[in-house]
């Protein structure tokens, strides 16, 4: 089954980036097209392309105007937009046949010291903590994008019952690996940072490691499943 995607709207982000916007919604069809386009540009970069940043409904293409300086009256921006427009049909074709991304299992120790807000989320959802864990670990989530911090995944697919508002007072320090809920989003902190998400567990896996190839554990397009583990198992894997 394929859902038709609107033709993208092109606009500049300053003088060295062009944004392709595919509507204003978070949905798997838009995501597949952005993924396919992103992969196509990585494999066959048009002249001047520096790097691409896929997001929920946009694909931002950074380029070097210097490479596109001989445009016979056309701005570097206009040349890049033309190049991208020419690649659009190939990206659309690739999106329709794209296979699902790899499934990455993320072990999580729920509750206790690792998930101090589990009780609060359970109370908010009017569920037992064990039911929150079961519902959080049930779906295959989709990694829509990685951003905000190195390796930080924006996930789609949270059980609507678990949606919980952010904390009124953000914590001054959330440890790397903390798994949280904010509104209808769930995610994993990749670096120790201040944060306002409701923390229900923690994974011992490192989401970003510069010594690893590739450095990020997760990539846009991956599928993700949380696997509950014990505190003992957490310590063993964290060591």
């Amino acid at each position, binding site marked *: 089954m394929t859902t038709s995607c609107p033709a993208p709207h092109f606009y500049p982000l*300053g003088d060295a980036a062009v944004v392709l916007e595919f509507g204003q919604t978070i949905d798997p069809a838009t995501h597949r097209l952005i993924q396919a386009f992103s992969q196509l540009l990585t494999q066959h970069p048009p002249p001047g392309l520096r790097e691409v940043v896929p*997001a929920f*409904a946009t694909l931002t293409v950074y380029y070097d105007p210097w490479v596109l300086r001989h445009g016979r009256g056309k701005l570097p921006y206009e040349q890049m937009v033309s190049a991208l427009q020419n690649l659009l049909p190939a990206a659309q074709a690739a999106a329709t046949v794209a296979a699902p991304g790899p499934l990455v299992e993320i072990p999580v120790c729920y509750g206790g010291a690792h998930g101090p807000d589990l009780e609060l989320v359970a109370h908010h959802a009017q569920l037992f903590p064990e039911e929150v864990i079961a519902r959080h670990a049930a779906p295959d989530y989709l990694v829509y994008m990685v951003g905000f911090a190195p390796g930080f995944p924006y996930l789609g697919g949270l059980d609507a019952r678990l949606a919980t508002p952010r904390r009124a007072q953000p914590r001054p320090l959330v440890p790397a690996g903390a798994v949280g809920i904010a509104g209808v989003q769930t995610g994993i902190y990749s670096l120790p940072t201040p944060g306002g998400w409701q923390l229900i567990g923690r994974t011992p896996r490192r989401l970003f490691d510069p010594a690893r190839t590739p450095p990020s554990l997760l990539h846009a397009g991956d599928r993700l499943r949380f696997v509950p583990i014990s505190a003992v198992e957490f310590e063993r894997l964290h060591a």
Partner: protein
Amino acid sequence: MSLTVLKPGLLTTVQDLGRFGYQQAGLVVSGALDPVALRTANLLVGNPETAAGLEMTLRGPRLRLAADALLALTGADLGATIGGQSVPLGRPVAVRAGTVLAFDKPTASGRAWLAVAGGVAVPSVLGSRATYLRAALGGLAGRALLVGDELPVGEWPAAARRLFDLLKPAGVGWVAARWHLAREPLARTDSSLPVRALPGPEYEQFSPASQEAFWAEPFTVTTAADRMGARLSGPLLERLATGELLSSAVTFGTVQVPAGGQPIVLLADCQTTGGYPRLAQVITADLGRLAQALPGTRLRFQPTTLAEAQALYLAQEQHLSALARAVHLKSLRL
């Protein structure tokens, strides 16, 4: 060959032109806050412009040069001296081994860049030597310089060797080239710093009065300012559209406006994506001005067009190419 850190200065980090290719993994670009200033300093000592140098903030370090060195300074005049004598900016300076380079007579407040022939040869992490403090990545152990650090220096390019030999510093002294950049480093004034920008993707969502105020009124850099970005204070900017935006890419020079109505201009260490409305985007040719916008600086945003911004981008690249050629010819005594 190395540089020994006798005093680290306020915030001295190893930077190059940044870490590209990992933004889709959420990794910030980092790199010099004024890339043109670092590229210029590198070209002046015969380095490739991508070599790593030092970025200094307000108070520079005190460095002992363990071996002969060829160095160049760009950006704000932080008062570099060798043996009590002022070292000029914007030209190659040949220095004999054992000399101490100090920054103890600042005449301007701002940021400056130091390039040394051979470049600062810390290990490259994911294709760059730039320091990203927040993730403790790149540079020297992912942090700012500390007393006692030893900074390795790479092998000199042939042009650097030729420039050094032409300058011929005597026994323990130093000699600056008589030629220098035509352009003076950006002068700091008490009035506001003009910064040219293009309307951002969400510009039309702001009220006409806010759009007008953004270009007409000055904005002051608050103390909430670092390499990631600077919070500005000025007229309240009101977004008429309601509802959350989907996170999308932001970059060096993006002016975003959180709900409070006070803008933030993002800098070299900014996050890769954000969900705040993007009111404007500072043009590439003026990013270096933001590097000098320390707390208290008043910025005045000036509207420009994409055609003009790209023309200025190309002119800047042409200027750097011409500089590279000129330094090469100087090294050949032509």
